[in-house]
């Protein structure tokens, strides 16, 4: 047998837990450490395990009232030593060798301490077993990369959802709004031009009307002057005729002609006076019209184009809005110069860079997920195969098989392929399954690790079944160490060796 060809291993402990000084020898085969309660059995296991795993913190090893401690292992012709030192601040520092077969996973796969949650592992649900196999198969390295990658993707996604990038997403809308404002500005400018030219045309119309009326007035006034002159001449003529009439014989033909001339002159005067009256009225009307037109021109010139002020105010507002919109667009396009992360950079460039990063991280996540799945599926198959082998070889009464399904849920199959919920198993059955699963884990992931250690799990155990399992393990592992409670009076652990 392989175990018989190996040499004895000596473990020396100094100031470890409650053990001041202890020297103990393990031989190939089964080593049963017997001691009463609180005499250092678990301390011994912990001390030894720190030579192949860092799972137990040094502060849990060194005796509370000591400054220094030591663990020494004689193995394969060499001495491996680890020293423990308490610093003035109370911290315990471990320094020294590890055994050549040291492996951080060994504590979980090869040391069945109550504190390692060996029973909890089978009652804790699928997540506990998944984590257990993850760590043993190094699947946790792949899940660590997946988680880190996912965290980065989330961080980048949160960044893209931040205000700077949110504004950038609104850029098309902002540009459309700016275009609308430019259109409104141009339209308002056109309206202003139209209003001004309309007003100017109106004024021009009035000016032309004034000119026309002025010209008419001049003409009519001239005609009126002419009529007035005609009337004066006519009156002078009548006066001359009256003078002439006085000089003539009243019954003469000449006098009769003069009288007819006077009559005609008076008729002319009446006609001219009537005409003067009409003409005067016309001139007055023209003057009034002209005044009205001039007043209107003055008023309209003073008023300016209708609604121009409103239009100019509107144009001013639109121009202000354009400035604000352009600033908003600039903010959406570029990070501010004092930005802590991307000072002055174009948002589109940074966004594109982040999207590229997410793209790559997505690919990385997919790649590691694939590897993780492959690794975990393989680990579970190998583990299940070793569990089945153990149950078949042990031939434990009542159990057909125990296995993990693809969701890492543990199934316990009773004879006749009847599934039994793990929680309904007896304490002894739970321990049996726990130890067999642990052995399967060791054989799957640490096949060359030379130890299998079981600490005080016999309390609620069926002794016959327990030793049957231990003997089975002994045939598969070079050194099996089992602690067992005894009522002996000795105060130090003793080793009983069963080759």
């Amino acid at each position, binding site marked *: 047998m392989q175990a018989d060809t190996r040499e004895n291993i000596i473990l020396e402990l100094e100031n470890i837990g409650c053990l001041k000084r202890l020297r103990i020898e393990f031989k190939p085969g089964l080593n049963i450490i017997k001691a009463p309660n609180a005499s250092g059995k678990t301390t011994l296991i912990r001390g030894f395990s720190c030579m192949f795993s860092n799972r137990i913190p040094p502060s849990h090893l060194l005796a509370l009232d000591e400054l220094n401690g030591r663990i020494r292992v004689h193995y394969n012709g060499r001495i491996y030593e680890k020293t423990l030192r308490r610093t003035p601040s109370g911290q315990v520092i471990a320094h020294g060798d590890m055994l050549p077969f040291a492996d951080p996973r060994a504590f979980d796969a090869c040391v069945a301490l109550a504190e390692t949650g060996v029973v909890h592992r089978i009652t804790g649900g699928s997540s506990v077993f998944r984590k257990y196999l993850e760590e043993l198969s190094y699947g946790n390295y792949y899940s660590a990369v997946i988680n880190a990658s996912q965290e*980065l993707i989330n961080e980048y996604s949160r960044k893209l959802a931040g205000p700077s990038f949110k504004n950038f997403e609104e850029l098309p809308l902002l540009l459309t709004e700016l275009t609308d404002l430019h259109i409104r500005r141009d339209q308002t400018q056109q309206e202003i031009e139209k209003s001004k030219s309309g007003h100017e045309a109106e004024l021009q119309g009035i000016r032309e009307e004034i000119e026309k009326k002025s010209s008419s007035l001049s003409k009519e006034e001239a005609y009126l002057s002419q009529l007035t002159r005609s009337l004066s001449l006519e009156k002078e003529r009548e006066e001359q005729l009256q003078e002439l009439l006085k000089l003539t014989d009243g019954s003469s033909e000449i006098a009769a002609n003069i009288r007819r001339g006077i009559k005609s002159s008076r008729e002319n005067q009446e006609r001219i006076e009537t005409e003067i009256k009409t003409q005067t009225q016309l001139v007055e009307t023209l003057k009034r019209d002209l005044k009205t037109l001039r007043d209107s021109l003055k008023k309209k010139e003073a008023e300016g184009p209708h609604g121009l002020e409103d239009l100019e105010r509107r144009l001013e507002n639109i121009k202000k809005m354009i400035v604000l919109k352009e600033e908003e667009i600039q903010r959406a396009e570029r990070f501010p110069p004092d930005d802590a992360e991307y000072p002055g950079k174009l948002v589109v460039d940074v966004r594109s860079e982040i999207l590229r*990063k997410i793209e*790559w991280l997505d690919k990385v996540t997919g790649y590691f997920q*694939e590897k993780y799945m492959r690794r975990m599926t393989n680990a579970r198959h190998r583990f299940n195969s070793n569990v089945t082998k153990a149950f078949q070889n042990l031939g434990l009464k009542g159990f057909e098989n125990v296995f993990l399904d693809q969701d890492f849920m543990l199934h316990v199959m009773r004879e006749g392929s009847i599934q039994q919920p793990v929680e309904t198993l007896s304490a002894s059955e739970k321990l049996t399954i726990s130890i067999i699963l642990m052995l399967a884990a060791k054989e799957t992931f640490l096949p060359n690790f030379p130890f299998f250690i079981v600490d005080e799990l016999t309390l609620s155990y069926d002794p016959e079944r327990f030793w049957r399992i231990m003997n089975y393990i002994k045939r598969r592992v070079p050194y099996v160490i089992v602690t067992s409670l005894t009522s002996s009076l000795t105060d130090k652990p003793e080793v009983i060796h069963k080759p």
Partner: protein
Amino acid sequence: MSNIRDRDSSHAIPYIKELERIALNLLRKNPNNKEKLKEILEDYASRYAREYNIRA
């Protein structure tokens, strides 16, 4: 199982083999060094973003 085994997407992902080696070495030394792992991933992601932009 065989389908999974046959699939290999590594050729499509730049620097993946290099990243895998570095990340696993880091985790082997300290499985809890999440920050350093993120730093490494970030460096490679930045490199990809840079080189992708140059190509584009």
